[in-house]
């Protein structure tokens, strides 16, 4: 082992200050890379981006407020491969400074409020387990309640194997709210970045009203390894690229990173949420809606601590008369 002198910085400098572009192999000075939105100035290769950088890129300054930051994964299966799942989680937390592979919150783009979810691929490959699924479902539900558009910027290898079928069912958990967004007339924009594969692509990410992708991003159902292993044939080059998806009609546009914010802003203006009738308010009491009302009365009998989790103000239900709120809404309808 070479002796390391604290003063000899030459080695450090060469490894830390420069990044080699995997496409054109040019050496890029890191600060230049940051300034250029992590895009290679020579060939335009889009490097992966962290959640913080992505928020700075897309949202108005200081507009982002994270929701449900405290959600953490458990180990429902007691999963142990080469390493216990809990150790892998801990290592990912230390490496990324994040609690989980996805973050969601409310922010604005040119003053237009959106509910936005973002992935970080560095956290266990951006894989979707119970917590990531929960965060996205809550993101969509917040969009529904507040009647603001939803945006998700995906970067994920797919469902998280360490949580077994609980991860698989997150595909359904994150997809179910989208049907409600359809019925309520709320737009959802899906942004696919490098890489978006597996269960994330096979659920909400493919179901955007508008789907955008970053140039050359790897986007596909089966990871290339799985595909070539199963099919046993050489796969054509670039068959899982953003460009290929555009050609086959599964992506609306390929947007270079520098234009992503303005594109989103434009789309938000072009595709506003459907107007709702006057009587309807964001976060209004929902118990007028069919049998949900009955169940809701049941929930109230169970207790009142029901409102804080999606972070919106909800009126406190009356303590004794569960029929009260329903009666009130019926009056509104008349």
């Amino acid at each position, binding site marked *: 082992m070479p002796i390391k002198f604290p003063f000899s910085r030459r080695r450090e400098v060469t490894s830390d200050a420069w990044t080699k572009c995997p496409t054109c192999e040019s050496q890029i000075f890191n600060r230049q890379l940051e300034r250029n939105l992590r895009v290679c100035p020579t060939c335009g290769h889009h490097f992966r981006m962290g959640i913080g950088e992505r928020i700075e890129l897309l949202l108005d300054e200081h507009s982002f407020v994270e929701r449900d930051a405290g959600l953490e994964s458990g180990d429902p299966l007691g999963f142990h491969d080469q390493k216990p799942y809990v150790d892998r989680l801990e290592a990912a937390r230390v490496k990324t400074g994040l609690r989980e592979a996805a973050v969601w919150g409310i922010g604005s783009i040119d003053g237009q409020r959106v509910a936005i979810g973002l992935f970080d691929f560095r956290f266990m490959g951006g894989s979707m387990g119970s917590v990531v699924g929960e965060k996205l479902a809550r993101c969509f*539900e917040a969009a529904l309640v507040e009647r603001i558009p939803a945006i998700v910027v995906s970067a994920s290898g797919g*469902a998280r194997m360490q949580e*077994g079928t609980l991860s698989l069912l997150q595909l*359904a958990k994150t997809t179910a709210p989208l049907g409600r967004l359809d019925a309520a007339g709320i737009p959802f924009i899906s942004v696919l970045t490098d890489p978006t594969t597996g269960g994330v692509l096979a*659920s909400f990410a493919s179901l955007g009203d508008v789907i955008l992708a970053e140039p050359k991003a790897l986007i596909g159902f089966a990871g290339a390894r799985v595909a070539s*292993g199963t099919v046993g*044939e050489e796969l054509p080059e670039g068959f899982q690229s953003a460009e290929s998806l555009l050609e086959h009609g599964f992506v609306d546009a390929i947007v270079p990173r520098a234009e992503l914010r303005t594109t989103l802003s434009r789309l938000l203006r072009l595709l506003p949420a459907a*107007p709702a009738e006057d009587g309807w308010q964001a976060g209004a009491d929902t118990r007028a809606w069919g049998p949900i009302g009955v169940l809701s009365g049941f929930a109230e009998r169970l207790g009142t601590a029901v409102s804080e989790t999606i972070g919106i103000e909800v009126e406190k239900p009356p303590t004794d008369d569960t029929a009260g709120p329903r009666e009130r809404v019926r009056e509104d309808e008349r």
Partner: protein
Amino acid sequence: MTEITLSASPPSPEAIDSAWRRVQLARHPQRPRTLDLAALIFDDFAEMHGDRSFRDDPAIVGGPALLDGRPVMLIGHQKGKDTESNIVRNFGSPHPEGFRKAQRLMRLADKLGIPLITFLDTAGAFPGPAAEERGQAEAIASSIKLMTGLQVPIVVVIVGEGGSGGALAIGVGDEVLALENATYSVISPEGCAAILWRAPEAAPTAAAAMRMTAADQLELGIVDAIIPEPGEGAHADHGAAAREIKQAVLASLGRITRLETEAMLTTRYARLRGIGLVREAQAPSQAGLQEPSLRRRIGRLLRLPGIPRRPRWSEIWPSGDDGTDNSEEGA
């Protein structure tokens, strides 16, 4: 969900053995397939073909059927019996057009208001380039989304392998039943072993670690009930297996149809939303983690707004009768 966190340890040799035996049974070549069961369970079954867009995928079969004299829609994966039929059926691994055929039949069931019954038996959706080109991921995603909103009862039966997204694409239901020797997993044990163990021969270990047997899935709350299999397994006696399945499906439909449509959809939504282990840290200062109570989880769902009524178009686009805004447009 109850507290199901276990202390993590590698699966024991006995657990590996037992899990792998189940996987073998779920993949047994003589296991009854969807079309075998269709003939044994239903009074009548008319198979429909094609996705009306590209082609017919023989890896998924479906069509209207009569269950005890009442119409239902049946959709299931179809594996072959021998090499030749397996090539035709692509070993039960659907292409996108298979899922789109399923969606077409689901919409028909929805239109006519007849319950949907699905049989899951696939190693997974086919991952080849042709499937990618035609949007495998989109086909699965839109199928899942469609099922979450279908206004008819859905009973899902895992009869063999429940392989990942290809199974879930027709596997979202009000009740999910599993045959005793069926399996359900997020990835094939071979795939999991290749990625996490970097050794395909670790597949039995991966099978045990993923807890993919029907009994495990029941414990995790993914499966609602287990259908017993005769003797050595369903492959030994198709007739007996079919009788058990029929009985279980009828019982399940009886439970679901007690609910009104809106309540059924709310319950289906709540069921999906409740899946998974999520812990909520109280505050950054408090290290203690707490699982949100069931009460809070139910409450969260019920606080979602209903569907607002849209305003009349005349309010959004006032007609030119008052002769103000649209004069510049000309004729």
